[in-house]
């Protein structure tokens, strides 16, 4: 975290030396993006906070935690492939699950399948590329996502 703050400070300074106007424009742009996303972020975290209070840790761990074993990875891959969750909701959710005890390995499978495979958007994809191509692309992406998620799971499992 501190590294990012230092990096931002240094880059802002360099950018400022080269072009004052551009730098201010960039900072303004970034802040606007932040404020635009803030209400949605707050309401998502509020809902997740309440849901996690109501759903006991035991239930959550039963499906996604260590107790679920390999099943946790299967659930993560299936949920990730089918759902269309925008990043600004998926990441807070993943971060919170991490705090509740879901492992990095399971979360990597979830995030990679979520990003690379879109089963529900195949009909839209098919309008541009044709159904066959869309299905082949998503199947290949699924294999790719499992490879990425699986290697990350292994790495996180051993460190």
């Amino acid at each position: 975290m501190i590294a990012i703050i230092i990096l931002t400070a240094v880059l802002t300074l360099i950018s400022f030396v080269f072009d004052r106007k551009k730098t201010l424009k960039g900072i303004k742009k970034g802040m606007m993006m932040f404020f635009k996303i803030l209400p949605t972020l707050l309401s998502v975290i509020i809902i997740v906070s309440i849901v996690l209070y109501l759903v006991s840790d035991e239930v959550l761990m039963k499906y996604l935690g260590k107790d679920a074993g390999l099943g946790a990875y299967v659930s993560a891959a299936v949920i990730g492939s089918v759902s269309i969750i925008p990043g600004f909701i998926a990441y807070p959710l993943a971060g919170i699950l991490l705090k509740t005890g879901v492992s990095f390995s399971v979360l990597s499978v979830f995030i990679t399948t979520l990003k690379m495979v879109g089963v529900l958007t195949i009909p839209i994809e098919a309008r541009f590329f044709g159904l066959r191509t869309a299905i082949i692309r998503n199947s290949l992406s699924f294999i790719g996502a499992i490879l990425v998620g699986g290697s990350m799971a292994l790495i996180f499992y051993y460190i």
Partner: protein
Amino acid sequence: MNKIYKKYKFDFPVIIAFVVFVGSSYYYHYNPGISIFEHNFWSFIKEMLFALPVMFILVGLFDVWVSKEKVQKHIGEASGVKGIMLIMLLAFMQAGPLYAAFPVAYILWKKGTSAKNIFIYLSASSIVKIPMLAFEIGFLGIQFSILRIMISIPVFIIVGTIMGKYFTKNKLEIKNG
């Protein structure tokens, strides 16, 4: 004002209801309410409110120095490694869901981008989005992001190459939706 309200018509009621709920929980010493606020909500949000503005400043600076239009202009004529690098950069700058990338793919196709690069573009834009990186690093840590991106890049170049070969071999076309 009306526009703002419409955009967040779901979020504002949730936030207001939550403020009222937490406020009255403290007033009446309603323990579940206090617990939801202190143990869940506050512990989730406190880092973010500090970290996200910093990350968004980075995103904003990146945006003014490397604009999407500038990158797009050079893609048509570029090929080889340079073409792949440019197409990946453009993909990383893409915001929004995957299906927002399909119309862009069509435009790139019309401009003469190769099928292989189009499929690399599609995978790349679903794997890394610079604006979303702030969220990923904020919630899962920089180690997670770097590892995921490093492992993903070769995988989607391979997927893109296979798809490109298939697409060209069968003489397929990208249609406009």
